[in-house]
């Protein structure tokens, strides 16, 4: 709101997105999560005399019952159609805690809310035969009682398939059926093994095609790739920690999480550490054709060298939770090293395998001794800390 006021007062290059931002979720200076949830659910923006869906009248600002009631003419507003129905005039559906199941199986429709339409199992009509009878009567997710569906909220409330208006159950698939391979995929029809874009071997041992031919390759300045390159001999992989969320932008400001995982690290095998003269806890440099970064070495027997096509291949692992401002000495994100390539259909990044080099950092980082800095911070009086240093005198003379 302060930024908005400043823009209103002083203007700016492109003020409209800020000054015209709708932001009325604050209550007593704090964000009211209920107001946000209601906005996501959706509401009527004006009085409606006769709604086209149920011919009933709705007042302005009444919450919509679900997305079926949304109108494309501006008379309704909704933050996300999937969650429409999660916060209605009946209250906060997400906060419900009624453990009563439906009669036929362990589905708890009055516990919380599930998108869309509080449906608990998507494509649930696949669990019945063409006449609407459950394949497994003991666990009947949904049943056609002759005139309507009972059990879970039907995924598309059309009659069973044997009846005239029946439809296939996989309503979001182009042909309505489940499939290993179907229309719309860039590669297939059968699963195939390809090597990653950057890999330590020249040839795909299983076929003549090394990488997925249907994957688009970018051609920007930073899109430099390499394979079997002695300059980048090691395989790198990336993963996450429980302590940080994605880039760490939210969690790195949380002092209890950042104290638990404070800095960029690279996990490597005892064998590779020996090869490169790296000791546990040493600062190291990691480089790929695309960039270079710094990390603390974590030497572990959890990572072991592979034997790939007869040669020893070393693996290193790191996270992408660090970077930029906080903490100042946290290091960077491994995204500096990763190649921009994804799978052929959705471009889900191929950050699990790429090539890097790891070397001991020649110029050691200046870093204060952690022991000296660690403790007295929270104390009001920053006196020199007189903590007795470990007294591991496990005495006892017998």
């Amino acid at each position: 709101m302060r930024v908005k006021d400043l823009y209103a007062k002083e203007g700016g290059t492109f003020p409209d997105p800020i000054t015209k931002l709708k932001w009325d979720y604050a209550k007593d200076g704090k964000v009211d999560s209920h107001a946000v949830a209601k906005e996501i659910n959706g509401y009527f923006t004006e009085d409606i005399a006769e709604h086209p869906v149920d011919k009933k009248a709705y007042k302005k600002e009444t919450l919509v019952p679900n997305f079926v009631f949304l109108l494309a003419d501006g008379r309704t507003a909704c933050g996300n159609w999937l969650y429409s129905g999660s916060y209605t005039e009946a209250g906060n559906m997400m906060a419900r805690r009624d453990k009563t199941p439906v009669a036929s199986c362990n589905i708890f429709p009055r516990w919380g809310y599930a998108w869309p339409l509080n449906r608990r199992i998507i494509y649930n009509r696949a669990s019945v035969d063409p006449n609407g009878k459950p394949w497994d009567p003991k666990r009947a997710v949904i049943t056609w009682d002759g005139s309507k569906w009972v059990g879970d909220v039907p995924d598309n409330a059309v009659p069973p398939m044997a009846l005239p208006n029946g439809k296939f159950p996989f309503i979001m698939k182009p042909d309505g059926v489940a499939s290993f391979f179907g229309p719309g995929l860039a590669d297939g029809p059968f699963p195939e093994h390809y090597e990653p874009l950057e890999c330590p071997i020249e040839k795909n041992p299983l076929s003549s095609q090394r990488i997925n031919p249907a994957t688009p390759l970018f051609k920007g300045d930073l899109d430099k790739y390499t394979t079997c390159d002695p300059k980048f001999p090691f395989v790198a992989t990336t993963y996450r920690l429980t302590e940080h969320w994605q880039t760490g932008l939210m969690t790195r400001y949380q002092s209890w999480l950042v104290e638990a995982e404070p800095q960029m690290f690279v996990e490597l095998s005892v064998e590779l550490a020996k090869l490169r003269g790296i000791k546990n806890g040493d600062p190291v440099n990691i480089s790929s054709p695309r960039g270079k970064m710094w990390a603390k070495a974590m030497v572990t027997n959890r990572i072991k060298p592979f034997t790939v096509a007869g040669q020893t291949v070393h693996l290193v692992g790191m996270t992408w939770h660090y970077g930029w401002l906080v903490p100042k000495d946290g290091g960077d994100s491994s995204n500096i090293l990763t190649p921009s390539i994804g799978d052929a259909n959705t471009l889900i990044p191929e950050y699990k395998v790429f090539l890097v080099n790891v070397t001991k950092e020649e110029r050691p980082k200046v870093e204060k001794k952690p022991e000296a800095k660690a403790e007295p911070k929270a104390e009001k009086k920053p006196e020199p800390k007189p903590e007795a240093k470990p007294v591991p005198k496990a005495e006892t003379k017998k």
Partner: protein
Amino acid sequence: MAEGKTFFVDTTKCTACRGCQVACKQWNQRAGEKTYSQGSHQNPPDLSFNTWKVVRFSEVPGEKVKWYFFPDQCRHCVSPPCKEVAEGKAKGAIIQDEKTGAVIFNPKVKIKVEDFKEIREACPYNIPRISGAGIIGKCTMCIDRIKEGLLPACVKACPTGTMNFGDRKEILEKANKRLAEVKTTYKDAMLANPDDVRVIFLLVDDPKKYHKYAVAENMIGITRKMAFKRILRPLRNLQIMG
């Protein structure tokens, strides 16, 4: 004292998520520390005035991966040696709650550096820490939560069943039952000093491989030292008076 309360820490179930470590800091409002990655995921590196619970990571060297997690904290000894020592140094600095058996520091009593050194030395598990202002910091058993019928924060937060808490008798039963189960897989499984402490760890390997102070080195020796100190105490007090 009544039977009191006891923790059972089943390390076979610990995944080192550190929910307990963070929950402890949250409930007790302890500040985060400035830490650095030092070749282990363990951080903060040790207990401190602000860190009362720390999950210790121990990677046993060797070809086979053995990675032990030890959610370290005050053991709330049945007869706490730290309290014994504190009695002679700063009376009332450490007290024991009648009902639960919780060993609690008194934040209002300041302690001299030399005196604290002795208190810490007396602890077989190397737990007590002190602030710059001479205040002891360590686990309180979340006595403020227990009195309200709540579980300690670390137990409440534990998603795996590692941290358990309850009446001593029931917890001992639970610990022994689990020990028998685990013994079928790990023949060296043991409970760490179950008769002496109110935080009983279940370990499946040499305790030293978990943490230097996982078990008391020699409770008998410590007790003897305590007894010795107890004999000396009146003399010292006399000296002060004279």
